[in-house]
């Protein structure tokens, strides 16, 4: 057989997969031979509550990448990129960091809300009170 094309198979939200699909993916990782195949499975940590051994083997073939919250430094860079500028005054930045908790999605939503609701004065760098951390991203109508 001539050139074999590598395959990247992405399975999103594996924490919602039932046992049959998990068994299939495990089987693929452990038994499949003769193919260039990268399986990337995204999951919330709760998968490991259900299946503590998930992603543990076989050695070398299966690994787990755990995404921790972003560091304050990276969150700061992210906020600056999202807002187009840094937020530096009046403790607002520390408040923002606390609300965001290193979660890029929260960062995006909080920054969008600040922008939408006019809570951020771009000229002066002053920032109003950010919304509660888990508040819904629904935007107020203008």
């Amino acid at each position: 057989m001539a050139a074999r094309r590598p395959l990247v198979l992405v399975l999103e939200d594996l924490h919602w997969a039932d046992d049959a699909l998990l068994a299939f993916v495990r089987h693929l990782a452990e038994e499949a031979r003769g193919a260039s195949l990268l399986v990337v499975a995204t999951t919330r940590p709760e998968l490991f509550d259900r299946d503590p051994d998930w992603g543990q083997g076989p050695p070398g073939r299966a690994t787990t990448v755990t995404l921790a919250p972003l560091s304050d430094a990276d969150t700061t860079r992210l906020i600056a990129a999202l807002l187009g500028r840094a937020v530096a005054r009046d403790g607002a930045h520390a408040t923002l960091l606390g609300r965001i908790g290193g979660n890029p999605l929260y960062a995006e939503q909080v920054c969008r809300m600040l922008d939408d609701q006019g809570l951020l004065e771009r000229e002066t760098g002053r920032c109003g009170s950010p919304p509660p951390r888990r508040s819904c991203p629904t935007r107020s109508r203008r």
Partner: protein
Amino acid sequence: MAPVGSVLVGEATYRATRGLFDYQPLPPVRVKGKAEPLPVWVAASARGRLGVAVDQGPATPFLGREAELGQLQRSYATARDEGSVRLVTVSGEPGVGKSRLVRELRAFVDAQPELIAWREGHCLPYGEGISFWALGEVLKAQAGILEFDDPATVAAKLADMVAAVVEGAGRAPVARDPPGAAARPGQRHGGQDGHAGAGGDLHRLAPLP
């Protein structure tokens, strides 16, 4: 308000899903308990997903995940160079950047000189009989099955796909009964052992088109 059988959504749903569906705006409607009329949209059609999620628009800058991306890149390179299988599980809380990391991997893969097949499947949080929905998405993409294909077309495309990738397969191995099964590949057929040779027989598959 809207034609019977149509799907009407409010602003939050519209904003959250407009990348996935085409919507038509409708005149604002008065709703009990709301002082102001609410803007509404009617869903016109799903945007086709052929094995790859629809682009969600401008992305948040990719920061602080270089090491994790490097790990994925190395796993890909190993699988490619060794002709072997690698499984990488990307774990994290909602919003922490799992899907984004995958998008960055895709950009890396797209930039490689070799031809690479990329397939995506999404596990769903609800419903019965959707054990293999994610794999069904993958197969639909592989076979070029579209959401609006009728069952006969779906069956024909599936048969073509099987004939194309499995050595020695004839043109007619695809079960056509019930035809709906082809349109809903997530439906469970057979027991949990139904997959038993599938992974192990990968070496029998011809290169992906």
